């Protein structure tokens, strides 16, 4: 869709690429912080002018090293300023950055390198460089690896691996002879040029490279920023994988609005760093909000009785009063007073401890979020809302407007987005953010994007009476029981996962007569429970097989069954039997994607014995599974798994 249909597509006339925005920001906000990173215990900062300078030297250095327009640059690393700068540097030269998940193993990386034909790799540290060098003999197209952190790399061959700063020095020399070169290069790109290729983790098969143009990313980001009233004074924490569109879109918003991005010191310090920065604008997958809440709950259970009582009392007040207050509805004077007291005693300090003290707007997306979790944050006065998007749409498809926040829906279409539900029940959209194509994969592109620009989301959903979109499940996952009734696995799994002691759940029922489930317990929450109740255990496996844990999970499953009863469309899909898996589902074993989504086909295959046991009435089942350890070695876990029957709540549902 043409950008002209939107009244103000870009932050300024002609500002349609990242390089142009960079120059613009360096002119508009020369002394304003653009980027911070905590290093050596102190927040180091770069102004927009300094960022432009860093990128300029690196760009010219890359050019000197032979990077040309149309080349691909693989970028692999954590949330480091130089990783972000590399993307823009590549774009200035007309090359295309391909960011990759830093925890991907060498083979996964090899696939992306081969598929994208990357000539240059920009890697964060020795670990990543080693991975590239490991696969380099199979990927001869890689000419040069540039690393950010030189530690341990001193002895490496300088013709294949070179320090980021060395490249920058080369660039500085070029600049001294051609001072205007960078500016000229920056203005060359156009909005419709390809800006980035993002590889989706792919719940099925090999990852696909989603090609996005500058228009896709920048128009979508800017429209969302306008709607949310963002200014150049926002503070944002960059802690999501750089290869994820959810991170990239905030980088785009930072470039559009000129606000500051903050990189944490290390992955382990994100919570502490977030508290120090106090972001005003925050995005997290439901999983993060969930684990924050679980943490709070665990720690409150361990708190002194007085504190615990105070917490419980004021949280009850917050749940009654906080949400109407946030939505601007009338609230009685006495309740307001109680809430104000709670704010001083509990909510304020709690929000501060969570690093959410200054958050005026928080987004969540990717998965459904539990009503209880959602309400907890809203009750505290944090305006958390859901949006719906995917890599192919440059994130924003729908978003919840203020005052119209319902836990089960994902809101109204964003500006410029057209939405429709296909006859099959699949959600489709057409928007300025709709992706260009899948890289080197015209069949998939044609299957996903119609000739007139409509994109299949792959999600089944419908529009509610309020005009909001409600997503039920992945369209391909929605199945039918042998009775012909609808089976929506993810819907049920999400209900299960809202219990703090359930980490992950996989349900089965397609083509069967009833619904059954695999459960992964949450080692943190259940481990804490075990400690408090003097339950001894030596491993995850032992804890998972504990009878009391089974009883606890069983109670939760029954609660889910009871709640399903009230949903007319899904009352028949109550869970009749379940088991607790002997190991955590793990991305290293291929059972989850890197973004922690369940790979159903693989699980169906690997655990077929267990699934059969769920349906043939067996009381336990022996299983042996291969597991990959973090250092790459492979071991085996074996054991008997108990299968539990659950009470179901209607006469229609299959008897257990």
């Amino acid at each position: 869709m043409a950008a002209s249909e939107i009244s103000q597509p870009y932050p300024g006339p002609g500002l349609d690429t990242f390089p142009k925005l960079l120059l613009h920001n360096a002119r508009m906000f020369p002394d304003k912080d653009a980027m911070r990173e905590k290093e050596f215990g102190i927040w180091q900062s770069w102004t927009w002018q300094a960022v432009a300078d860093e990128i300029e030297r690196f760009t010219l250095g890359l050019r000197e090293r032979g990077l040309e327009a149309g080349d691909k640059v693989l970028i692999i690393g954590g949330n480091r300023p130089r990783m972000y700068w590399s993307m823009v540097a590549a774009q200035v030269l007309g090359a295309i950055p391909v960011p990759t998940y830093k925890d991907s193993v060498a083979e996964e990386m090899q696939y992306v390198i081969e598929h994208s034909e990357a000539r240059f790799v920009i890697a964060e540290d020795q670990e990543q460089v080693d991975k590239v060098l490991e696969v380099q003999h199979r990927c001869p197209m890689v000419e040069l690896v540039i690393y950010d952190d030189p530690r341990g790399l001193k002895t490496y061959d300088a013709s294949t691996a070179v320090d980021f700063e060395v490249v920058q020095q080369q660039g500085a020399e070029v600049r001294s002879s051609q001072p205007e070169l960078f500016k000229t290069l920056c203005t060359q790109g156009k909005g419709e040029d390809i800006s980035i290729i993002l590889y989706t983790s792919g719940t099925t098969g090999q990852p696909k490279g989603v090609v996005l143009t500058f228009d896709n990313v920048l128009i979508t980001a800017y429209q969302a920023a306008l709607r949310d009233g963002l200014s150049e004074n926002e503070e944002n924490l960059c802690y999501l994988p750089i290869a994820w569109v959810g991170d990239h879109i905030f980088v785009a918003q930072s470039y559009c609005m000129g606000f500051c991005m903050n990189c944490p010191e290390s992955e382990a310090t994100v919570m502490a760093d977030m508290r120090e920065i106090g972001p005003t604008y925050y995005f997290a997958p439901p999983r993060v909000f969930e684990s924050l809440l679980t943490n709070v709950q665990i720690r409150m259970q361990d708190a002194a009785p007085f504190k615990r009582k105070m917490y419980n009392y004021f949280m009850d007040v917050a749940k009654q009063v906080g949400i109407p207050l946030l939505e601007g509805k009338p609230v009685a004077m006495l309740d307001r007073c109680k809430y104000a007291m709670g704010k001083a005693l509990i909510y304020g300090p709690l929000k501060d401890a969570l690093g959410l003290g200054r958050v005026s707007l928080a987004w969540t997306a990717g998965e459904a979020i539990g009503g209880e979790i959602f309400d907890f944050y809203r009750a505290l006065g944090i305006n958390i809302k859901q949006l719906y998007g995917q890599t192919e749409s440059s994130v924003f498809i729908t978003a919840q407007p203020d005052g119209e926040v319902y836990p089960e829906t994902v809101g109204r279409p964003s500006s410029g987005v057209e939405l429709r539900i296909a006859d099959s029940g699949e959600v489709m959209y057409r928007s300025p953010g709709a992706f260009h194509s899948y890289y080197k994969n015209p069949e998939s592109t044609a299957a996903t994007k119609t000739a007139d620009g409509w994109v299949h989301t792959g999600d089944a959903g419908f529009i509610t009476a309020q005009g909001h979109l409600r997503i039920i499940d992945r369209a391909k996952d929605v199945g039918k029981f042998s009775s012909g009734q609808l089976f929506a696995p993810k819907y049920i799994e999400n209900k299960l996962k809202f219990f703090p002691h359930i980490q992950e759940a996989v349900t089965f029922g397609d083509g069967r007569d009833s619904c059954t489930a695999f459960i992964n317990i949450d080692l943190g929450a259940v481990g804490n429970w075990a400690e408090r109740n003097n339950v001894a255990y030596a491993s995850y496996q032992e804890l998972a097989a504990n009878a009391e844990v089974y009883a606890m999970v069983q109670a939760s499953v029954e609660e889910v069954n009871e709640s399903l009863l009230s949903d007319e469309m899904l009352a028949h899909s109550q869970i009749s039997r379940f088991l607790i898996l002997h190991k955590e589902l793990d991305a290293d074993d291929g059972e989850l994607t890197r973004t922690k989504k369940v790979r159903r086909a693989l699980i169906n295959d690997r655990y077929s014995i267990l699934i059969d046991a769920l349906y043939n009435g067996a009381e336990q089942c022996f299983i042996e599974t291969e597991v990959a350890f973090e250092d790459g070695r492979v071991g085996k876990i074996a054991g008997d798994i108990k299968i539990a029957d659950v009470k179901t709540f209607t006469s229609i549902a299959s008897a257990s």
Partner: protein
Amino acid sequence: MSIQNTTADQQHNPAVLLDLKHISLSFGGVKAITDISFDIYEGEVRAIIGPNGAGKSSMLNVINGFYHPQQGEIWFDGKHRQAMKPYEIAYQGIARTFQNIALFKGMSVLDNIMTGRFTHMSKNLFWQALWKGPAEQEEIANRELVEHVIDFLEIQAIRKTPVGRLPYGLQKRVELGRALAAQPKLLLLDEPMAGMNVEEKEDMCRFILDVNDTFGTTIALIEHDMGVVMDISDRVVVLDYGRKIGDGNPDDVRNDQTVIDAYLGVSH
């Protein structure tokens, strides 16, 4: 600011940093060390191995001045060393870690590592007591160096955590940090990998090699894990019952029949 010190440049031409000549040490009638001589080159990783009771830790204690040998000479950095107190030797540039971690359990990781900078603090109590002044400058400079050590050892997340609350493997890393903070010429590691799991061992190996690589620090280490010793050290000295029975590069030592018999076991 860098924790690199001057020895790094001299790696190519191995100069002797520490030379032990005919050392004998006994406690009453018990002979711990009998007539042992060996040297440590600048910039190398030197391992001392041997069965239990071979005199390894005693040897380390002789080097850092905790024990005074009854016989023999110690030459450090080109000078003949007289009997000294351990703290005097610390000032000379020898730092160590201990077999059984010796940290201040109640203090934070940061404070523990800061104590490693003690030998580099010169301001007296008067200046220390003032908020502003030269002591503050000194403290800032030292803190900056300590932060580099923390960054190097990747322990940013536990900077403010009391050491007593940390798992064993991390405490070992903090202890290494404290020794590194002293910017030693010679770093003594007493069983740095004892009691660690495979992953922690791999991490520790990487840190030891990186320390040697990046800062050029000379390292002498005692270790039981033969795989580790053979992998990371340049030269190995083997002790048994207080005597030296082998000395050379790892491959030679591994194939030396006396060493195999004494340490790796005789096949019957």
